[in-house]
Each structure stands twice: as C-alpha cells, then as structure tokens.
C-alpha cells in the first residue's frame, strides 16, 4: 500500500530543504517513523544536520523518530518539526 501525503517543513527544516511544502505521491504505508524520516533525508540530504533533534508530526500529532509504525492515508499531513522555540 502507498499513500499520497503533504509534507510540511518548518523553521530550519524549511531552510535546509528549500521548501515549505511538497507532495509525496507514493509513500509506503504502514511505515516506521524512522523509515519515513529516512525517505525525507534521501530527498533532502541537508536535513541530516537535524538528525536526533527532530520529530515528525503526522495528522498534527507528534511522532518521535523510531520503530513506531505510522499508517498514512491519502491527503495526510506530515510535518518536520525541529526543536520548538515558541514563547
């Protein structure tokens, strides 16, 4: 199974990828958050400077990068979330 998802890049990840947003047409699902991150790293190798200091958000829920399996559906939003600095 694959899904078409929208990936959002924020803060430093947007600078590193050069993108605010992109569509990925055939992301395997279910997929571990680690594999999802690796897939983004392949597309944008400069994101590796965020390694170990980043989480993802899937459908607006934080997902730590690791073995956890994520089920993706068409139209889902995946966000790259560098360390927060609100306030």
């Amino acid at each position, binding site marked *: 199974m694959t899904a078409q998802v929208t990936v959002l890049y924020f803060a430093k990840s947007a600078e590193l990828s050069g993108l605010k947003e992109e569509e990925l047409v055939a992301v395997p699902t279910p997929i571990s958050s680690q594999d999802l991150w690796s897939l983004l790293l392949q597309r944008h190798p400069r994101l590796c400077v965020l390694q170990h200091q980043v989480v993802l*958000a899937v459908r*607006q829920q934080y997902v730590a990068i690791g073995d956890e399996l994520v089920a993706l559906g068409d139209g889902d939003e995946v966000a790259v979330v560098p360390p*927060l600095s*609100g306030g």
Partner: protein
Amino acid sequence: MVEPRRDVLKLCHDWLSVQEVVDAVSSASCGATSLFIGTTREDVLNGRKVIGLEYEAYEPMAQSEFRKLCDVIRERWPSVTHVCVHHRLGWVKVGEASVVMAISSPHRHDGQQAMQQAVEQLKARLPVWKKEVYDSQEASWKENAECPWASNHKQ
C-alpha cells in the same frame, strides 16, 4: 451554575495588548488573574547584537496542542477558569512582547501555579519557532530547553 470555560490562543502579527488578554479572561467569579509576558531581551552574542526575532508556527497544530495543554492544566487545577494566550508571528523587534498569557481563577494560588506549568508546557509543546536576527544580517534558530528533542533539553 458553572461558568463556561474559555481557552483562547491567538496567533497575530501585530503588537500585543496586555489589556486585551486580561479582558479575555475576566470573570465575575474570579478574584485572581495571573499573567506572564515574554519579551525579547537586548542581547549581544559573539559581538553581534540581536535586533529582533522572526516567528513562525504550524498554526492548526498550535491550536490543537493549545487545547491539549489547557486540558492538562484544568485536570490538575480544576478551578482554573479562563486561559488566554496571544502569541506574535513574523517580525518582532527587540523590546516588544512575543507572548502574553493570562489565567483567571477564583483564588490566586491555583492560577499562579497553573501559569508556571502553562508557560513550561507552551515552550515544550506548541509548534512555534523563532529565529534570532543580528545586526550582522546573520540569524540563528533558537531552541527551548523545555522542548524534549532540543539539543539543550533540560529535564
């Protein structure tokens, strides 16, 4: 009769009015309002002067994380009446408030404790980012020590 609770997060590009945030939590049943205002300090880093901050947010998720945050606060301090946060986005000059938070409660202890926890949680969980901009034209992304995946995370 229990008054309906208000939880309001406003993300805005304009100057923040403290009075507006105070008014947003006012309630005839509340004797105490606690506030917190976060402001960019004048600062010099390696000879570069900070001139301002550039904020961005994942807006819909900021709203949903804020609702979760308020739920956690209310679970621990059920007497918390209203919660209001106004947070700047975009360019914020040094010396201007970036965030104004207010909590109203019938008595002050609950509100003050809840406020400390709310600021902590906001910095740890709200998907908002700021870039410090220097007079040298350089900039660097900040990281909150409260954020669990920040390199400078403090437990």
